[in-house]
């Protein structure tokens, strides 16, 4: 199944990825990163479809989508 990796340190917590994810596979993380943002995180057991929407909208290039075959 496809999955995403979010770079916690570069994420600025805009949550646009969360907004666009059709699978509701991303959520706000609990921890603060060193810039003071709560980075977005993939939800556990999310059903990522690998649509790349999150990657496309992320302003910080913080998301990579892996489509493991």
């Amino acid at each position: 199944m496809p999955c995403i990796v979010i770079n916690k340190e570069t994420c600025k917590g805009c949550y646009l990825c969360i907004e666009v994810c059709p699978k509701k596979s991303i959520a706000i993380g609990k921890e603060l990163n060193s810039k003071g943002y709560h980075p977005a995180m993939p939800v556990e057991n999310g059903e990522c479809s690998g649509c790349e929407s999150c990657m496309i909208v992320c302003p910080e290039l913080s998301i990579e989508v892996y489509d493991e075959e």
Partner: protein
Amino acid sequence: MLVKTIFAGFGGQGVLLMGVCVATAAMNEDKFVTYMPSYGAEVRGGTANCTVSISTDEISSPIASSPNYVVAMNNPSLLRFQHIIKPGGYIVTNSSLVNVELGRSGVTQIQVPGSDIAEELGAMRSANMVMLGAYAAVSNVVSFQSLIDAVGEVTGKKKKELVEFNIKAIKAGHDNAKEQIKKLESIEA
């Protein structure tokens, strides 16, 4: 006597307001005072800080290259300013959010759980008032009463509940810090 204090934190934490309140209090005590915010592009990225200088004499520079006090509302503020504090100076940290360790010696750290106290009182956003009280207790550069008056003056005296709430918050911070100082003094003594 010249005392310089840097108040620092994230953008939304109201650190500039803290500075203005302290400056106003000092003015009302007929002291010389300057207040200097960080400005311009520096502000981008969501951090903010300001410097208040209080003196019995004319003040040359409103900037502090080595402040006597730093009030750090978050981790980045502690990291950024800890090394420039004057030896013998104080850093008052909002221990609810600041969890990195102080990386230098020769200064005293007073840890006040500002956000937690504020939350207990019922308004998380008033952590700055709590820390203001703590700062007053630690520094003694302005009296508790004139600080309370100043906060009222600055935030507008109309909303009475707010004023009263702020007084409560300041007092809570003040008491918390006083407690710690007492302990410290007893250790040193």
